[in-house]
């Protein structure tokens, strides 16, 4: 993921539904609230001055309850809904202010969409549905077929190509919806509650499938959801919306550990934190011993100096290869052995920084601290059993505190 490249930039986006949006817009700019505007003009404030940037390759989740404006927001990006005011830049082009022809071109090539109730054409076969975006663009039948089959293979529906959508299950229909969006090779996917209509089991399966595809394809995805679990599970970043405003934007861990207000806190209180928190957030950085460079004596001195009981050994590529402990090191010193490779214990627990807390509970039965590595397998630090317990303890304390405040502010929240 190229973190520096902005794909979508939304600036001061406002959407007002109703007869006289310009009048309502003036009221809004004068600082009047949603309720005020509704009672004064009968117009509804859908999106209230939202600004955000979405990076290339990011899976960005917009989370909110119904009526929070999240569906409106996503429809403004491809202008299924006309914004009342503001700018939406896709690759530095303000699509909120382009001609109908240009926005049609943007929809055909840059932004594809997946719908909550699938939005498939019931009279077209699975293949024709998947090829629709290409047909609209005027590609030849053979090109359409070739691409459609290719994408159907990606979502595992090749043998259903000639069936009508109605003969497929909900999960399979949404795979068709996803395939239709992928077939256009658009870099941006808008997914409007794409998995909300599915059974819980199928939903989880589709979430995993989306993560798998995303790891391969690196699309820029704007995913709308009302399900906090889903948002925290799949989102690189999550924006929480309420009454047309964005309450907080941040990584799933940010939302859990630094909730902006009671609204976010109330939202996240039922979330299983151990599933969301990543090992990376509780990793302690330590100095490793480098195999073939540091001697046993040097390791021993470092251990004495920092008062450690054990140290990890990494190779020259910074990958952890073993662990040395104080007693065995002392023994080696006495025996006059110089090679750490002989002294070290090659059997040690190791996890990726992106693993969730819950997934490493079973590793806590080791006596040794757990080695943490990044995506390339390089050593980042260690996690001790006590750190895991402490983080869970801290989270539980936070959760019970927040449920107390949430209970106290109940009338306000409703």
């Amino acid at each position, binding site marked *: 993921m190229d973190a520096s490249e902005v794909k979508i930039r939304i600036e001061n986006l406002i959407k007002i539904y109703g007869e006289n949006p310009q009048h309502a817009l003036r009221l809004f700019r004068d600082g009047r609230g949603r309720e005020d505007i509704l009672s004064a003009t009968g117009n509804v404030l859908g999106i209230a001055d939202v600004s955000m940037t979405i990076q290339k390759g990011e899976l960005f989740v917009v989370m909110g309850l119904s009526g929070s404006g999240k569906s409106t927001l996503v429809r403004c990006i491809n202008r299924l809904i006309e914004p009342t005011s503001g700018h939406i830049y896709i690759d530095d082009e303000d699509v909120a202010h382009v001609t109908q022809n240009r926005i049609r071109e943007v*929809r055909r090539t840059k932004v594809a969409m997946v719908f909550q109730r699938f939005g498939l*054409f019931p009279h077209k076969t699975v293949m024709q549905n998947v090829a629709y975006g290409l047909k609209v*663009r005027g590609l030849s039948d053979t090109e359409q077929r070739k691409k459609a089959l290719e994408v159907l293979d990606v979502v595992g529906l090749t043998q259903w190509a000639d069936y009508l959508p109605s003969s497929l299950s909900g999960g399979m229909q949404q795979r068709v919806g996803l395939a239709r969006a992928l077939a256009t090779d658009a870099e941006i996917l808008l997914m409007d509650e794409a998995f909300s209509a599915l059974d819980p089991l199928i939903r989880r399966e589709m979430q995993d499938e989306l993560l798998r595809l995303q790891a391969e394809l690196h699309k820029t995805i704007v995913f709308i959801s009302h399900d906090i679990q889903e948002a925290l599970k799949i989102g690189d970043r999550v924006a929480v919306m309420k009454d047309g405003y964005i309450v907080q934007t941040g990584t799933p861990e940010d939302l859990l550990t630094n909730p902006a207000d009671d609204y976010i806190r109330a939202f996240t209180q039922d979330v299983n934190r151990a599933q969301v928190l990543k090992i990376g957030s509780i990793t302690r950085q330590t100095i490793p011993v480098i195999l073939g460079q540091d001697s046993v004596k040097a390791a021993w001195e470092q251990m004495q100096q920092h008062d450690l009981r054990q140290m990890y050994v990494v190779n020259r590529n910074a990958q952890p290869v073993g662990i040395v402990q104080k007693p065995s090191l002392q023994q080696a010193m006495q025996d006059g052995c110089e090679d750490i490779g002989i002294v070290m214990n090659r059997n040690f627990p190791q996890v990726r920084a992106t693993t969730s807390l819950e997934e490493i509970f079973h590793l806590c039965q080791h006596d040794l601290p757990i080695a943490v590595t990044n995506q390339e397998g390089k050593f980042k630090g260690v996690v001790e059993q006590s750190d895991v317990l402490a983080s869970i303890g801290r989270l539980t304390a936070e959760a019970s505190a927040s449920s107390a405040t949430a209970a106290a502010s109940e009338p306000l929240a409703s």
Partner: protein
Amino acid sequence: MLEIFETYTIPLGDWVEIIVQFVVDNFRPIFQAIRTPVSVVLSGIEAFFQWLPPLVLIVAVGLIAWQLASRGIAIYSMIALLFVGFLGTWSQAMTTLALVLTAVCFCILIGIPLGILSAWNQRFEQTMRPVLDAMQTLPAFVYLVPVVMLFGIGEVPGVIVTFIFAVPPLIRLTNIGIQQVSEEVVEAAIAFGSTPRQILWEAQIPLAMPTILAGVNQAIMLALSMVVVASMISVEGLGQMVLRGIGRLDVGLATVGGISIVLIAVMLDRLTQAVGKPHRLPWRKRGPVGLVLSLTQGKTRTQNATS
């Protein structure tokens, strides 16, 4: 004093007379120009039906009915047409059929686009609604007179009267059919960059087709029910027989004409209804086409096997 209506009467009748007379005096050429396309289509269709040997038509209708609908409806259609022929009303029936089909042609040509327009444009729909209400509720006799004044008498004004009576349900059902297409499907079509024309042809019309066909069916039925009224402005055909029967108190003649109308009406109704219904088998695998295909393919297969 209480008899307020005796004090004043709105001279609506006079006004209408003046207006119609004005239109007749000044715009008659326009209405005469409208005659031409109607007259061309009508005489073409009628000449074709009158020229076609009855037996050929009966077999053709049977095959078409078998293909589009079912074997049962095919058998009914053939028996009905044979019966009409043996009642001695074949020629009149063909005239009536030509008139009905011409009127329905124009209904489809004009009604479906108007229905689509009213589905797209709410203001247009609101303007159309009272017009359609008037067209459906106004007794046909009322507009018979101005139509005769503008178009004269004969078959062409007959088609026009029939059109006025038969087109409203087609417009309405087309409108409803298009509006009933799932919003999300239309949204999906837009989201993938469809032009308005692509939205119409790829999503709206195919999905509204069953409802539009129900509208066509309604138009045909209403057109048939107009044939007697149309005969009052000297349109030939089965309606003329009924009208003459009434005039002469000739129960027999009226019944023969009436029964023929009913037989044809039921036939056309079943046929058009069946077109709108989804079938179990694709069209290549059913009816006479399916039979022929399976026979020829069977033959080539055995030929391949023997050679």
